[in-house]
């Protein structure tokens, strides 16, 4: 195990200064996520325009460095993408955290992929995987806008 891999510079930096924190104006989709075990929670707000493009995205919540960094990086990368692109990125990210060694999508630029790969350190810390994935699961729920609250147990 390697703490350095888990707490890379970029994670610490995003954790400390998360981007897109707050409640975006005129959001039209949102969802809450919750980790009952530890009390972490996140609320993702999304503005999907008529062309089904993510015009704006933000989040509120509190959590550890990993979860804040993950939400921060996620919102950064998803902004401006179409909903189909977003879904592909999400799936790719969750697949990478779960088992794949690399990201596979052709949507993100290399340096964006590098940012995301910084979160791969959690793979060695099974109990922390939920921290990294909560905001992503919540984003899925927001996009589906089924109003169902997400918990990390699933």
């Amino acid at each position, binding site marked *: 195990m390697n703490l350095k891999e888990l707490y890379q510079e970029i994670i610490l930096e995003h954790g400390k200064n998360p981007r897109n924190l707050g409640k975006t104006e005129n959001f039209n989709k949102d969802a809450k996520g919750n980790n*009952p*075990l530890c009390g972490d929670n996140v609320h993702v707000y999304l503005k999907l325009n008529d062309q089904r493009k993510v015009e704006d995205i933000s989040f509120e919540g509190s959590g550890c460095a990993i979860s804040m960094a993950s939400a921060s990086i996620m919102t950064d990368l998803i902004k401006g993408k179409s909903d189909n692109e977003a879904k592909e990125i999400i799936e790719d990210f969750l697949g990478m955290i779960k088992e794949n060694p690399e990201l596979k999508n052709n949507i993100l630029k290399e340096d964006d992929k590098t940012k995301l790969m910084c979160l791969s350190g959690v793979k060695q810390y099974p109990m*922390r995987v939920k921290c990294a994935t909560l905001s992503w699961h919540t984003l899925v729920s927001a996009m589906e806008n089924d109003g169902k609250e997400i918990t990390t147990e699933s």
Partner: protein
Amino acid sequence: MNINNIRKEFPIFDEKIQNNDLVYLDSANSSQKPKVVLDRINDFYSKQFSNVGRSIHYLAVAATNLYENTRTSVQKYINAKDKNEIVFTKGATEALNLVANTLGQAILEPNDEILITELEHHSNYVPWHFLRKSKNIKIKFAEINEDGDIPIENIEKEITDKTKVIAITHLSNVTGAVLPIKEITQLAHSKGIVVVVDGCQGGPHLKLDMQDLDCDFYAISCHKMYGPTGLGVLYGKKKWLEQLPPYQGGGGMINEVKKDRISYGELPNKYEAGTMATAQVIAFDQSIKFLESIGIDNIIKHEKELIEYGQEILKKNNSVKLIGNPKERGGVLSFTVEGVHPHDIATILDETGVAIRAGHHCCQILHDKLGIPASARASLGVYNTKDDLDKLNEGINNCKKIFGL
């Protein structure tokens, strides 16, 4: 299947019980434990112990994984669709209380009927009885036939529009009757009736296949399945476990807790409030592995031979009266001896190391019906031999001698 090797896996058979070899014929009460299970308990406590599901340090993560591994093993062993259909409880009794209580809260209305049978163990009657008082539910009893069986017709004729639940044993702990659960479930489901199976004796003696039985709930007693005490399993179909309210409240089963409201966690946490029987769950994985290593088909075959042999010698012994003559008998031989009360039989057998049970075996309704206050019961485990049954028979002969019969 080499019975001598199997016996060697159970340390208790190395012991002398009051200078006798142990002839253990009380497995329907609780089975003995193989060494692998004991070693697992000991290893877990001495090398890996931590509480599960709460902390995120190394030991806690490892323990949580081990705990969840058993859930998966049980899922596979009983052929459940989803690991979250497996709930750990403190025993089968708690599992049945959980089901009766939550069905009572969620779907039962006054004057609804619960159909149980005259074979039921108190653990599959008293929890429903509670609903008589709290909810004005009616309880009906499907009757046994003269063989101590419950033919499906006896179920069918008690079903009314008001029947909401059929709660029934898979294998009677007194007559040994194996009930046609699959057919009962088909019948029940065709009428929208929930089927709850008391699988305490099914667990150790029968092949467990939830997809085949298709029942809604199935309760298992781990200590009768070569596992630790203080542990049971409730299988419940996901649609039920998701829909029903929680049973006990506490740490681990919540989602969000506020002063004015509480939301509950998802499966499997919802039904596992408080610190669970961690070590027991983790060790039960070894019980499953033990059963799998022998193979349930071999166990069934072995026990069938013993049951047939036992019936044969006891039938030859005049003054012994076997209880029940079911079409399919599993694991249990109950009997009376003309002129000797079951307690006296048990005491006299005990003197030579033969351990059986005497009494009503938590089935007073059945004993009332049979018109006897008590019976003697020899029940089998995978470790028993024909020799054990011979010793049983010798013991009975000794009773007759002492009582001058």
